[in-house]
């Protein structure tokens, strides 16, 4: 399983904090995103407009990346701490 986490206003807009995806459905980050958006067409606009950042296992990932069973992937909007 890949554990997918949504944070802050992304979580609010999707109405969902996390979802598990079978690792056979998503061997890479881009496959995971495609899978999620095909399953949930209503998410497309939010994903396109929110300028989302991505982390795999708590580290930022900018390009595509390979995923493995047990990975945690997070999608979130630009950060505003401090």
């Amino acid at each position, binding site marked *: 399983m890949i554990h997918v*986490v949504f*944070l*802050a*206003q992304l979580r609010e807009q999707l109405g969902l904090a996390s979802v598990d995806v079978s690792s056979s459905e998503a061997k890479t980050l881009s496959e995971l995103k495609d899978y999620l958006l095909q399953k949930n067409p209503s998410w497309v606009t939010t994903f396109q407009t929110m300028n989302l950042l991505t*982390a795999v296992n*708590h*580290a*930022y990932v900018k390009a595509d990346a390979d995923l493995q069973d047990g990975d945690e992937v*997070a999608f*979130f*909007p*630009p*950060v*505003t*701490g*401090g």
Partner: protein
Amino acid sequence: MSFSIAVQENDFDVGNEYAALIEDEVNSGAVVFFVGRVRDVNDGRIITKLSIEHYPGMTEKLLDQLLDEARKRWQLLSARIIHRCGDLNLGDQIVFVGVSSAHRQDAFHAAEFLMDYLKARAPFWKKEIDLSGESIWVEAKSKDEEAAERWQE
């Protein structure tokens, strides 16, 4: 030498943090710290409360990485980052960054670097509640990203 971070709901005491930064360090001739607080007006809206969310696990990891990076760049004797989460009121303290060093230049630079990178990278999100009770997520500012970018080597 003490380098530590904390993400917590509780408030912090600047006096205690200062004491901890210089504890057993006769060489720490320079101590710099920054405290960020909840402001009453942001982008023209009157704010009454602030709610801060973070990404547990990644936040702590990233703040530890920031301390490691600061120690590589400057001669530091100790450093501490505290960032609060949860519901805060006007004037409440949000964030503490403190560093001690033998010399002020290293202490000033490291403190500013830590704050700039924290703002641009650490996975925190602020939601403001205004006078009418409406809550709005704070938008990321490009000047915060630019502030972090100027430290890139």
